[in-house]
């Protein structure tokens, strides 16, 4: 759930990252494969709170931060984690362009000690575009656990660049890294990377192109070889970006083009064609990487990942895989429901007490009744209701979910579910974005960047709001507790509410699949495409960090946002409820207008009005409903959820209303933040509008259906 200030707030645009340059010190780029601990290092050095988690692809935006060491200031630029910088995917382009054209004083390539061989691929690729490289071998503690020993000194000799070993979770181990950064930036150490030697014939052709390029352009030395390689590969998009960034024109240079075509012929004569050029290059890199690893790594235990494999066998087994997944989710919700109940009641009574004091105080200072009512019953009451209903479940749910995330379970969910998603012509990674949606749909929509195919990404974006975000599920929990579990006491009751909430969520997942399938047959036609996903090793979550991070970064942030919306909304609703034409309040007029339609859906006009007023933030739907019912200032003190229940029942709620409200909570238009994020991510109003319309129509139809079925049953 990429839900921190940094991931929601100042997401840098792709273009401006290039210009990140520290005027008063040094600039350092952080590169690496996904999930190697880049963000952990970044946070630790800068003291910021970039989102970390154990699944590949979560660093979808760039972040910058400062750190001081000795007498110097360093600007750290966290670039997206990528396996390579050769492709034209968005992240790789950002990473490549920044390292190549942003001219950082040093580039740290973070590598995973437990899978060095593959990670060296990226190191060698980056060596082609810059010399100032520091290799940071992270996760040494995991390597040790797996009995892998790495000779860092030898690795440094073989690569020709400084190599530092770190354990990012232990801050102390980063001192060495800082020291090396300092020395490289200060030119105390000058890395001289030992680049890959490709096949002699390719090296020969690179030389030819190099000298030709030198005739025409005056560039920094490292770039000639890089451009030559890209010319050999005929990588149009990369060459375009080189041309744009350096303001030169290579493709229209006749002399270079002729040479390129001639070389192409030569190479294809000996069997190196356009289609296997990349294979040849990568093979050379991987061979070298294998050689180096054989020299520097010692594996003392050949079966080093056997524990992970055993766990995986169970968590992805044919019979238990999916039930376990549902069970995990169920347990999380159950703990949330049970745990949130008591603190919620306490908050209700506490705020109720404060409210009474405020009213007496207002009377005491002779405050006009309309003003005190507006501020206390409008603004204050809405605010405190939101806090009482939302804070406890969130404070429990977030840490639990972060725990699963840190453990590395999310990619397994994607793996387990991919078969279903494939049948619906979309990607299993969509499941990960849905999990992020539990935190916040806006974060889920941004997270859709991990899906590399535009069509599948769009499907994931359009359907993300089918999973209830944390602004909605406290509401679900409340309704379930009141209506579905109220007659059952204690333990069984909490189980029943969990099942009810789970049912709604599974319905959301099911609807996601159905709608995806429909989309893939209509406006987003296409066949299922490829799916390649790394399943990272399980990692022991850091309990302390999880608590702090989920409470401060997520819970308080989300709550803060809800409060910002709730205060003005409370005011507006109060005014709507108390100002009217001919003695009828505006709220009543709107609700009465909507009532016939709402009845068809098994709801009433007030509920629908509340959902509409709740567009800025779904959190405020329940407070608005209550405010509507209690509208004209009648003073009720709410002690707990059951008091809420009584109000609802007095206003005609039945089990059908409750079910339909739960369904509609899950399936309706996303909040404004999400809509704006969708606009930003897709760039088109068309998709934004669709993402508004699709879930709403689903919700309406489903509610009408349940109402119909219910009515038939009742009449029989």
């Amino acid at each position, binding site marked *: 759930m990429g839900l921190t200030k940094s991931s929601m707030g100042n997401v840098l645009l792709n273009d401006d990252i290039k210009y990140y340059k520290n005027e008063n010190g040094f600039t350092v780029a952080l590169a690496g494969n996904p999930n190697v601990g880049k963000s952990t290092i970044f946070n630790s050095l800068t003291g910021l709170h970039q989102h970390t988690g154990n699944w590949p692809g979560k660093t979808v935006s760039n972040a910058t931060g400062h750190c001081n060491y000795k007498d110097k200031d360093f600007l750290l630029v966290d670039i997206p984690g990528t396996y390579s910088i050769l492709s034209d995917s968005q992240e790789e382009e950002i990473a490549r362009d920044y390292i190549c054209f942003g001219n950082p004083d040093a580039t740290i390539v973070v590598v995973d000690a437990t899978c060095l061989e593959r990670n060296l691929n990226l190191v060698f690729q980056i060596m082609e575009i810059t010399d100032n490289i520091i290799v940071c071998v992270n996760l040494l503690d995991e390597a040790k656990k797996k009995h892998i020993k790495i000779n860092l000194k030898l690795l440094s000799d073989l690569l020709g660049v400084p190599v530092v070993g770190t354990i990012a979770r232990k801050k102390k181990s980063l001192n060495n890294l800082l020291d090396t950064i300092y020395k490289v930036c200060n030119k105390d150490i000058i890395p001289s990377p030992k680049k890959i030697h490709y096949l002699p014939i390719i090296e020969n052709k690179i030389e030819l192109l190099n000298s030709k390029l030198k005739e025409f352009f005056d560039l920094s030395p490292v770039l000639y070889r890089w451009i030559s390689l890209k010319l050999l590969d005929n990588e149009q998009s990369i060459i375009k970006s080189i041309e744009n960034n350096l303001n030169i024109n290579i493709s229209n240079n006749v002399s270079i083009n002729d040479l390129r075509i001639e070389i192409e012929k030569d190479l294809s004569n000996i069997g190196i064609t356009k289609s296997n050029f990349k294979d040849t290059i990568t093979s050379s890199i991987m061979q070298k990487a294998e050689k180096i690893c054989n020299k520097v790594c010692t594996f003392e235990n050949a079966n080093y990942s056997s524990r992970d494999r055993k766990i995986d066998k169970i968590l*992805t087994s044919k019979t238990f895989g999916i039930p376990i997944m549902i069970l995990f989710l169920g347990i999380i919700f159950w703990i949330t429901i049970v745990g949130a109940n008591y603190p919620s009641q306490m908050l209700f009574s506490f705020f109720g007490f404060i409210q009474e004091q405020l009213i007496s105080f207002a009377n005491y200072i002779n405050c006009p009744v309309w003003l005190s009512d507006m501020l206390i019953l409008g603004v204050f009451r809405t605010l405190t209701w939101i806090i009482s209903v939302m804070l406890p479940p969130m404070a429990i749910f977030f840490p639990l979910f972060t725990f699963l995330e840190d453990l590395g379970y999310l990619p397994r969910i994607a793996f387990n579910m991919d078969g279903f998603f494939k049948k619906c012509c979309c990607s299993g990674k969509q499941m990960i974005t849905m999990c992020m949606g539990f935190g916040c749909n806006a974060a889920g929509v941004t997270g859709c960047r991990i899906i590399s195919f535009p069509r599948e990404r769009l499907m994931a974006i359009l359907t993300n709001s089918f999973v209830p975000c944390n602004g909605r599920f406290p509401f679900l929990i409340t309704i379930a507790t009141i209506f579905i579990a109220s007659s059952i006491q204690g333990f069984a009751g909490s189980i029943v509410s969990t099942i009810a909430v789970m049912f709604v969520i599974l319905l959301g997942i099911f609807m996601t699949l159905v709608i995806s399938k429909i989309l893939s047959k209509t406006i987003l036609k296409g066949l299922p495409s490829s799916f390649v996903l790394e399943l990272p090793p399980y990692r022991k979550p850091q309990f302390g960090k999880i608590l702090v991070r989920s409470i401060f970064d997520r819970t308080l942030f989300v709550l803060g946002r809800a409060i910002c919306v709730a205060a003005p909304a409370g005011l507006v609703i109060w005014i709507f409820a108390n100002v009217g034409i001919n003695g009828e309040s505006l709220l009543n007029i709107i609700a009465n207008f909507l009532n016939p339609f709402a009845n068809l859906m098994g709801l009433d006009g007030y509920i629908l009005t509340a959902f509409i007023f709740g567009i800025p933030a779904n959190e405020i739907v329940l407070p608005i409903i209550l405010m509507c019912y209690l509208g004209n200032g009648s003073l009720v003190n709410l002690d707990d959820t059951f008091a809420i229940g009584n109000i609802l029942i007095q206003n005609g709620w039945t089990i059908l209303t409750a079910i339909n409200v739960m369904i509609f909570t899950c399936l309706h238009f996303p909040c404004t933040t999400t809509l704006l994020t969708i606009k930003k991510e897709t760039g088109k109003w068309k998709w934004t509008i669709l993402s508004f319309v699709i879930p709403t129509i689903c919700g309406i139809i489903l509610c009408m259906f349940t109402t119909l079925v219910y009515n038939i049953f009742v009449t029989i």
Partner: protein
Amino acid sequence: MNTKIITLNKLPVNKTGFIYNIKCSENVKRRLLDLGIVKNTCIKAILKSPSGGLKAFEIRGSLIAIRDEDSSLIQIYTK
């Protein structure tokens, strides 16, 4: 030595093979290359998805999930 060429999706769980040829589309192939999947790379089938249609393979120390559509275009040889 008795080598046999099969497609990757036919590799049974817990068995090992070596990459022989990747015939996937340009895009997918590139992604596989990025993960270090080149000719002669050792690859071992580890997990099968309960919902079917994809498997996870151990490649160079990491676990990578690949759909059958793609793995049926990858030829491997077994010893």
